[in-house]
Structure formats: C-alpha cells, structure tokens
C-alpha cells in the first residue's frame, strides 16, 4: 500500500510517500509559510521524482494538528480534495506525535514535542518509546509554557524536547529543568511527513482512519469568539 503523507502544521511543509514500510521519498521546506502556494508543487514534484502518479496512491495521511489553524486547514482541504476521487482513506495523525516520533532512538527519556501556540502557550503532549513501542503518555493539549515546564520538573524523569517551541523556549527550559532536559537536533526539530506516514501505517492497520467527508483537523484551541461567549 502506498501512502502519500503531508504536514503543514508549522512553518515547515513536507510531503512523503511510503510504500509499505519503505520510505520512497520526502520533500521538506522550512520557509516563511506560503504553504498555500507551495504544497501542491511539493506533492507534484515528489511524485514526479518517484515516477509516480497521484492515481498510484492508495491512501492519504495528514498531520491533523495541533498547529497553525490556517496551516492545518490548507493540508486538510488538500487531502480531502486528493482523496475524494476514488474515495480513498485519509489517516489523520497528530502532528505532535509525528514530531515526537523522530526522537524514538532516545530511550529512557520522555519525548516532549512543543509547538508555539503564541500568548505564552504551547501545544504539547508527552510521548515515550521503549521495547513495547511508541506510545502517548499524556494526550495532546494546550498549556501555559511556564506552568508546564514547572509541572515537568515536579513530575521527574528526563526529557527530550522537539518542535518549533524549542526555538522560543530553550533557554527557559534549561533554567527550569537543567540537566533533565535535552533537545532535538535542528534537522529533526519540525514535524515531518515521513513520520506522519510511519504512524499512519500503524493507525491504518488498527482501522483508525477517516474519509474525505469525516476527516477534520484537531485544533485543540477553540476560537476567540467561542471562548468569549462561554465567559
């Protein structure tokens, strides 16, 4: 089964094709946004290089968030349009999980992906990898950055941080957690479509997928207007 995966949840955009367990190819750009202009070229260029056609793809995978609302919608709308002819499956994968999955060589450390959510908040979750496999310890959520780092310190254990939040919060994390914190290398900092594809394959085997009508992003944060009305 060939899966085309995409992710535009952060300022990085990527597309990857996996054939069963083989990563056939991946294109990734980390420019200042412009996802709307670039995404289809990224996909088309990748398929072209792989001597493939969009019709060769059996299922689509998408980084479903959390992340930039607009970025999530660009990927989600695109994947819906790609999957609708032929009613092919869409596998939605947590963008935080995809980011964490690049760090699975780090055993005995909790993997903490953090995406900058502005307003001193981060999107995050706690992930881990051991002999039993990759797992989510604390589901994706939005937290005040300062409070969250304090909680992690109190919780105990060692951590490896990844995600674009590292760029903003590295110094504060170092002050708070000291020796307990390690950081992803720059090349694996952002969520990648290849990781989305790997996780998608696992989810697909468990029957966890949507179609073009049911697939939706996971925003986590409500809109300001909704929050205002609730207050």
């Amino acid at each position, binding site marked *: 089964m060939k899966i085309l995966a995409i992710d535009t949840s952060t300022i990085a955009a990527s597309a990857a094709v996996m054939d069963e367990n083989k990563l056939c190819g991946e294109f990734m750009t980390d420019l200042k946004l412009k996802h709307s202009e670039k995404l289809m070229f990224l996909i088309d260029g990748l398929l072209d290089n792989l001597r493939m056609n969009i019709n060769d793809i059996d299922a689509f995978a998408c980084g479903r968030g959390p992340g930039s609302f607009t970025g999530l919608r660009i990927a989600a709308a695109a994947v819906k349009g790609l999957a609708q002819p032929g009613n092919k499956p869409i596998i939605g994968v947590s963008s935080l999980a995809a980011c964490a999955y690049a760090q699975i060589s780090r055993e005995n450390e909790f993997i903490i992906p953090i995406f900058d959510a502005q307003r001193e908040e981060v999107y995050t979750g706690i992930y881990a990898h051991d002999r039993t496999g990759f797992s989510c310890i604390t589901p994706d959520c939005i937290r005040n950055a300062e409070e969250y780092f304090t909680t992690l310190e109190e919780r105990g254990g060692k951590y490896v941080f990844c995600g674009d939040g590292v760029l903003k919060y590295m110094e504060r994390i170092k002050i708070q957690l000291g020796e307990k914190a390690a950081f992803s290398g720059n090349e694996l900092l952002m969520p990648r479509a290849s990781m989305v594809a790997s996780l998608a394959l696992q989810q697909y085997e468990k029957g966890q997928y949507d179609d073009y009508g049911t697939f939706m992003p996971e925003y986590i944060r409500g809109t300001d207007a*909704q929050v205002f009305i609730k207050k």
Partner: protein
Amino acid sequence: MSGVTILAIESSCDETSAAVIEDGSLLSNIVFSQIDIHTKYGGVVPEIASRSHLEKVTAVTDEALDKAGKTLEDLSAVAVTCGPGLVGALLVGVSYAKALSYSLGCRLIGVNHMRGHIGAAFLAGAQPPCLTLVVSGGHTMIVRVDSYSDFTLLGSTRDDAAGEVFDKVARVVGLGYPGGPKLDKAADGGNEDYLVLPRAMLNEDNYDFSFSGIKSAVLNHINAAKMKNEPIDVPGVCASFRKCVCDILVGKTIRAAKNEGLNRIAVCGGVACNSLLRKMLIEACDQNGYDLTIPDASLCSDNAGMIAVSAYHQYLAGDFASLDLNASPSLSL
C-alpha cells in the same frame, strides 16, 4: 465548444457553496449558509467561518454533483473563488479545489468573486455591453461590462460598502444580524423623512461612493436620543436611511449609464435583494427606457453558481490557473 462541465466552489465569506455548469447552463447550485452559526456573535467570525467551510465543502460538492447528475470524472475543470474575501475562508476553497483538480487531472480556474457577482447577472439574462452596479456587504462598485470578460471599474466606495452600513445601522437599532434584510423589512411603513441625511457624493462628478458619513449621522441621532432618554422611531430611522442609500445608488447608476451611453443595466450582489432598491431601479429604468436585469435573490447573495458562470467564460477564453494559485483577500476587479 461543447461538453464543458465545470464544478465551481465558493468560500469567500460565510456561505459554503458548490455548483455545476455544463456548456453555460447551470445544472446545480448548492449553498450552505453559515448565518445561524454567526448570529450569536453579531457578525461573521473569520476563524469560525473557516472551520465551517472545511466541514461543509465536500458535502456541498457531492450534493452539487448529485443534483447535476454528474460525477467527478465528468469534470473538464474545477473552479474556485480566489478573492476578494476573508483569507482563511478563501484558503479552504482554494486548497481543496487545487487538490481536487490535481487528483482528477483536469483544469483549474481561479475566479474573482466580484466578477462572479457580474456572472450572476449574465445568468439572469444580462448581455454586454451593459452597466453593472455591484452592491454587497463587502463592495459597492459601478462597472462597465463590454464583454463576458472585459470589465472596467468606473467607481467604487471610498469607505464602507453599502451592505456593511446596512448591517451596522441594523445592529445599532437592535435588529441583529444579518442586518440588511431585517432593516429592509423594518423600514417598510416608516417615515422616509424622519431623519434628514446627507446624500453623500451624489452630485459629485464621479461614480464613487461614501457611506460612512451617512452611517455616522444615523448613529449620532440615536446616541443623542438615548442621552435624552427619547424614544427612537426604528421604522423611521430605517426608512430614512434606506431611502438615502438607495437614492445615491440609483442616482449614480443612472447617471453612469447616461454618460457611458449604455441602455442596459444590471444589479447584483447581496444588496440587490433590497426591496426599495429594486423598486426604485425598476422605476428609473422605465422612465429612461433602459433594460434592467436583477438576478433572483438566490443568485445575488454569495453562491457558487455565479462563480461557475464566470469560470465557464474563462474556460472558453483559456484563462486557467496553475497549482500555485493562492487566496487573494484584496483582489481587485
């Protein structure tokens, strides 16, 4: 050229819509309006609109194809509104349409929403050359239409759009959202001379509009009345305000037609549903011997049918978009 089947998508503001057109005949036009979603916020909330578009875009597409008796594989092109409008809302339609056309291996067409409104007039029988008044919640413009693709902007609003001031005045007098239709109804039976309002720019030698001063005059009256604890004559305020805006719209439109030597007039956009505007235009065109085209209300408010009409003419002209098509929130005519 025959056998041209186009799916059009519209998501520029608060309607999610899909339509299918075949050889210039509109086969379906499905509109999901978000009005109920935005009412409690008193206006369109862009982030909520964008989320809702994503939830509905595939469903309106399936329904439009079903109703037209077509499948995705029948399509010659996928067309989409690329601007002007709310950027987040536009991006849903644009991203979806690009991927769909790519997946189908068919053409992609990017349509200007304002040209789409004029497309609705074509669908209702307007023929170039004609003079067009495009009047909506986001725009107010007078356009000379020489062919299905050759449009010249003669004038536009320098501040608020006509539909926008209708909404604002409606909100201030407590009519709620969407204000245009509610104000139109409240004005019926009101005294048009209750407030003396400036006919801004009506006699200036151009085709531009300015509505913010009129809006301020109404708001000042209401605030003054509130300060003095005097009752507000809502029908009177609405009637005076509506008459003022319509006097300007009709006056400028007729003058433009005369000066441009055009004897056909078309009116489109959401405010073309306003009952007094329709009545006054019919009378003015009768007096001057002009042909008048006003599309059905369903084609005046935002819908993909009008986008499909424009897309069809672009298809015939070979005007296609590439995969880097982006949303252009302030695209000009």
